[in-house]
């Protein structure tokens, strides 16, 4: 168990392509940190740099306080779970679990004890003698996790470990990973492009875009106070409604509340913050035509076409009360729930 610190870490590929702009990141001992972002944002590269599978162009990677830039992956005492599991197909499950321990010269009795322990925790005891190809996707996933935990490493690195599973299994494994990480209390870095996975798993989320960190914070912080336009658009499903100040002004009938500053270029509101009645709070009222209703169980997503700017606003309503297709609807955007972003930089304005 150890903290991981990145100081001024940068990655440039040949041909002067910068994958990671210099960044600092401190991951506390025992923390589960999730790196999230669209594909190509550099999150996997960053993880691979921590693992030692990619060289670091500039800056320092430290695991447990000591610099590890020059150390081989094997010497960093980390374990990694790959997207395709990377199980050794010619070895049994037991062979897969033992491989890392054998390479490190662990005594036989210790190996057996650790494999037993991992098999018990992950409930893969019955499959120990099988080959990976005889296992289902979820079982392979468990074996991949088992291979990580038998080593008792300083840190776990997860590279989109759930993206090859179907939706239901993904939900289950997510819960299990979180429980496992809590009980082992091992520092973990988890890479995903799925913002829901990031929100549910993380102690802290790092939202990345184009090789830069957009925001670091607790899942609730990132959701409630997105630091930039990018984070606002990326986190949350359905996504935040984002309007240009002028667009919203047009829809609102020519004027906006005082609280909207002069620098504000974009105004955002979460679909679940849009209300059907003002309830006496200061709010911006806009009217549109209901274009589509997506019932998702307890609530519905309503797509409202705003006539003056021809933009679509998404709102969440309980059940499907009071909405019907093609009807006109007036909704209220509470002023307190608006997010404002700078016209030039796209950063949040409070």
């Amino acid at each position, binding site marked *: 168990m150890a903290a991981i610190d990145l100081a001024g870490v940068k990655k440039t590929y040949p041909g002067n392509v910068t994958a990671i702009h210099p960044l600092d990141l401190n991951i506390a001992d025992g923390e589960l940190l999730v790196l999230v972002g669209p594909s190509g944002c550099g999150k996997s590269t960053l993880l691979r740099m921590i*693992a*030692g*599978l990619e060289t670091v162009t500039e800056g320092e990677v430290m695991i447990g306080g000591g610099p590890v830039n020059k150390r*081989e*992956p*094997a010497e960093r005492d*980390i*374990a*990694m779970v*790959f*997207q*395709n599991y*990377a199980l*050794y*197909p*010619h070895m049994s499950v037991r062979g897969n679990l033992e*491989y*890392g321990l054998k*390479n*490190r010269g662990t005594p036989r009795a210790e190996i057996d004890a650790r494999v037993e322990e991992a098999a018990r925790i992950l409930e893969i005891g019955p499959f120990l003698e099988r*080959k990976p*190809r005889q296992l289902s996707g979820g079982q392979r996933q468990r074996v991949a996790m088992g*291979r990580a935990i038998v*080593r008792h490493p300083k840190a776990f690195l997860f590279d989109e470990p759930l993206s090859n599973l179907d939706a239901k299994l993904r939900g289950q494994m997510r819960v299990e990973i979180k429980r496992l990480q809590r009980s082992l209390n091992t520092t973990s870095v988890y890479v995903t492009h799925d913002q829901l996975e990031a929100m549910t798993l993380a102690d802290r989320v790092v939202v990345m875009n184009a090789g830069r960190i957009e925001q670091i914070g607790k899942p609730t912080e990132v959701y409630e106070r997105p630091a930039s336009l990018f984070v606002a658009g990326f986190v949350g499903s359905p996504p935040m409604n984002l309007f240009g100040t002028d667009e919203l002004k047009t829809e609102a009938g020519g004027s906006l509340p005082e609280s909207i500053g002069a620098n504000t270029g974009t105004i955002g509101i979460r679909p679940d913050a849009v209300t059907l009645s003002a309830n006496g709070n200061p709010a911006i009222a806009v009217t549109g035509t209901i274009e589509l209703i997506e019932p998702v169980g307890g609530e519905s997503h309503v797509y409202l076409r705003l006539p003056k700017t021809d933009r679509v606003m998404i709102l969440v309503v309980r059940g499907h009360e009071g909405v019907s297709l093609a009807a006109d609807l007036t909704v209220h955007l509470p002023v307190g729930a608006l997010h404002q972003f700078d016209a030039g930089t796209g950063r949040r304005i409070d």
Partner: protein
Amino acid sequence: MQTKRVVFSNRGLPYALLAPQLAITFVFFLWPAGQAIWQSFLREDAFGLKTSFVGVENYLRLLREPDYLNSLSVTGVFAVSTTVLSMGLALLLAAAADRMIRSRDAYTTLLVWPYAVAPAVAGVLWWFMFNPTIGIMSYLLEQLGYDWNHRLSGTDAMIMVVIVAAWKQISYNFLFFLAGLQSIPHSLSEAAAIDGAGPVKRFFTVVLPLLSPTTFFLMVVNIVYAMFDTFGIIHATTEGGPSQATNILVYKVFEDGFIGLNLGSSAAQSVILMVIVIGLTVIQFRFVERRVAY
């Protein structure tokens, strides 16, 4: 693997589609093979005036003939050495090329060239290089204190034909090994690296076992190659000599049949050769393949 049953509306069509392949198999394999089997039971007099049926006499004579038994063991040494040498070097080259990213295609192209060289030309090429009088290799060996002469030394001659045969086959093996290496997911090597295995250990514990289907396939192909397709190489270099040292079975078939004009014995030898290769292939696929599947 799932087989798909195709239903043809016309009953004659599948036979018509198969006909060209079957015709080729019949004309170029079944017919001559049948002729060889029939001829192996016959004996012709020296002037070709009279042919008589002698049963298995040709076979029995072969088994008593020291030259033939020598040829059997020469073939064994030749086939095994050629296979081991060409596969070993090919694997080494493939592993090296696999590490390259941009230059890989260039290396691949260059390494495939020897395959385009005709066996006889390859033989002559090396024959010149190893020529005891004017050859560069024999000159270099002489500098090292070795008196190379494949015209007198059976061992030298064997080493030379093995080198020629292996050299020609390296390209083929290289292509298959490279394809095999590239089909192994990179993440497996990375996982092994994180699991504390160094490059050499990774190669032997992860890469090589995963290559075993390729290795097995190449082994079968190479042994068959060494036994059958190396006629041109032997003919262009040693002609089976010196003193039968490189007279492999397929060359002896030619020598006894077309130079010695003992057609009956030659036919019997080719039947035995055919049985050996069929047997080897069946044994390999039946028993070895089971152990390499994972």
